[in-house]
């Protein structure tokens, strides 16, 4: 039985900072009934540090005064029976007493226990306002450490400190799905592989995000049912080629705020070629009414026009696109899942039949059936001996120019500078990049002049595109494998930082959704 904390001792009184490290050891609380419930949620360990079970929802306060005020409010609320989270309302975590620094940048990542801290409820906001100078607005998780852990050496604020990618998995890819194979079965295979990879029991999964063009009439909840997953967080994303990145952002925020603790992010498609043609012709109302009747050839026709514009604007030759396709094919030789692995020469590339001028066969992403999944959870859940991959910064953009530009940039241009600043790194620091590559022209549009080891699994152009959502997840998964130093013959030496992007939803003249993130190997 843990010893009872002193009721007179303010919560967080003994949080100390030593050598730039935060050392947290004691929580306490007030009030009889509150105290009892608090002690049910928080039990003290033998080494006099607090252990709070994962999933407990707590509030973080940034200084002593806020802690005291919060404790008082919560005591009152508990006495009055107010509050939707009554069981959790009196649990408060500690934080460094530094008003200037946002709390998230001061949290840290190693330790034996963790406390999930959620954004204050509306009710809380109403209650706290009279007492506090500033709202407890930051949703975050802090960890109680059992020893001093260095704060990350890199500058910049880390967007997600307590959520990371801990495992990845994929199904087989195939050009032609066989009877009995469906979007659902490919997704199942990817989910099983990701859970095995992350060493997570399916019963531990409490969140899922899914994107697919061919799940209908089923939706995310049908998939949860069919996978036997009982969840408290579920998202279905409809942003095509940037769905994967978008879902990653949602999942990170959910884990960071305690909405869920282990989230499967998955995507897959198995349309077959005929099914894909139907998806392409009925992509949205604008396509149905104004493009498909022209015989526009789906995205091939759209990006043929964008490619022509790009060649004209930048003076590019067909062979410039060939360089990219050939380099990615060389990577694909080392990816057993890639549908095209044979080496390709410039002669092969240039001799390929035209599909939609100036695009020829190797400029157009091969449609495959398949699925991908990743697992997002607290970095501590990462299997032993493997580095979790966390996200230093993540940004997204939707409909950035109302389709009124030339399509030679993407929504990434609206946030690129901000992304790098938030991540605290420069493009030059990046070791490996997964740039969404349904067409070479769009890689250039997202990437500009930068040079990284690019799409080291072969990209979708060689590995295949199992629908936009899973295609984007493939890029994230490859970045994770590279940063975990598990990419085998494809391994980029000592990879530590990666950038990943997504691009999708061709509304009319080009894509309208984009997202990017800077991923980091957590040592």
């Amino acid at each position, binding site marked *: 039985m843990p010893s009872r904390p002193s009721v007179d001792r303010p919560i967080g009184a003994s949080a100390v900072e030593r050598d730039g490290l935060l050392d947290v050891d004691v929580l306490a609380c007030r009030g009889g009934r509150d105290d009892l419930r608090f002690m049910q949620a928080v039990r003290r360990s033998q080494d006099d540090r607090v252990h709070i079970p994962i999933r407990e929802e707590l509030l973080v306060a940034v200084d002593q005064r806020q802690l005291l005020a919060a404790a008082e409010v919560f005591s009152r609320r508990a006495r009055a029976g107010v509050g939707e989270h009554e069981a959790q309302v009196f649990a408060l975590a500690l934080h460094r007493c530094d008003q200037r620094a946002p709390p998230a940048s001061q949290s840290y990542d190693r330790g034996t226990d963790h406390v999930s801290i959620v954004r204050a409820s509306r009710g809380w906001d109403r209650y706290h306002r009279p007492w506090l100078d500033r709202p407890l607005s930051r949703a975050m998780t802090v960890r109680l450490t059992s020893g001093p852990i260095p704060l990350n050496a890199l500058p910049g604020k880390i967007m997600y400190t307590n959520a990371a990618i801990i495992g990845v998995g994929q199904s087989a890819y195939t050009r032609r799905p066989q009877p009995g194979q469906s979007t659902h079965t490919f997704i199942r295979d990817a989910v099983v592989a990701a859970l095995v990879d992350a060493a997570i029991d399916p019963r531990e999964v409490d969140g899922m995000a899914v994107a697919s063009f061919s799940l209908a009439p089923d939706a995310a909840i049908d998939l949860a049912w069919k996978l036997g997953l009982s969840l408290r967080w579920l998202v279905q994303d409809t942003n095509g080629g940037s769905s994967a990145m978008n879902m990653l952002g949602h999942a990170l925020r959910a884990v960071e705020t305690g909405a869920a603790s282990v989230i499967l992010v998955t995507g897959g498609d198995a349309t077959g070629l005929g099914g894909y043609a139907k998806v392409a012709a009925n992509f949205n109302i604008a396509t149905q009414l104004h493009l498909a009747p022209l015989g526009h050839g789906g995205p091939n*026709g759209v990006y043929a026009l964008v490619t022509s514009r790009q060649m004209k604007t930048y003076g590019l030759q067909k062979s410039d696109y060939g360089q990219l396709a050939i380099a990615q094919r060389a990577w694909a030789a080392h990816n057993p899942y890639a549908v095209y692995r044979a080496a390709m020469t410039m002669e092969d590339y240039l001799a390929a039949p035209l599909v939609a001028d100036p695009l020829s066969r190797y400029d157009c992403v091969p449609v495959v059936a398949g699925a991908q999944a990743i697992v997002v959870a607290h970095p501590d859940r990462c299997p032993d001996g493997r580095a979790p991959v966390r996200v230093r910064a993540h940004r997204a953009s939707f409909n950035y120019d109302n389709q009124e530009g030339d399509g030679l940039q993407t929504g990434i241009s609206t946030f690129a500078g901000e992304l790098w600043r938030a991540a605290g790194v420069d493009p030059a620091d990046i070791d490996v990049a997964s740039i969404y590559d349904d067409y070479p022209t769009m890689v250039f549009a997202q990437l500009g002049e930068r040079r990284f080891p690019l799409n080291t699994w072969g990209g979708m152009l060689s590995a295949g595109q199992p629908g936009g959502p899973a295609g984007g997840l493939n890029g994230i998964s490859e970045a994770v494998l590279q940063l975990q130093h598990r990419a085998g013959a494809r391994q980029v030496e000592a990879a530590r930082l990666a950038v990943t992007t997504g691009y999708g939803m061709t509304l009319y003249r080009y894509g309208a959704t984009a997202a990017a993130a800077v991923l980091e190997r957590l040592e």
Partner: protein
Amino acid sequence: MNRGVAIWRCVKCRTGFFPQRLLCSRCHGDTFEEDRVYQAVVEEISTIRHMLGQTDWQPRRIASVRTSDGQRITVGLTDESEPGTVIELFEENASPFGAAKK
């Protein structure tokens, strides 16, 4: 077949849109009136030589064009017009097509 292509003009700021919108992206006005544009200049072209799921596909030409009112739209080309050609626009159902001025 109808001569010209329907566009939707914001009553408040007079900006013309294709395809139709719900609010004007310039002024967020919510009232539009239908107008027509009749001419455009071809900017980029492509020949669609292959169509997924179809075996007897006949190549078709498409183009990104700039209309005389300023919209950039995608049309089916019914002749061999090249970039720079001024074309006349017409509609088949709701779809825009064009061919060089005769």
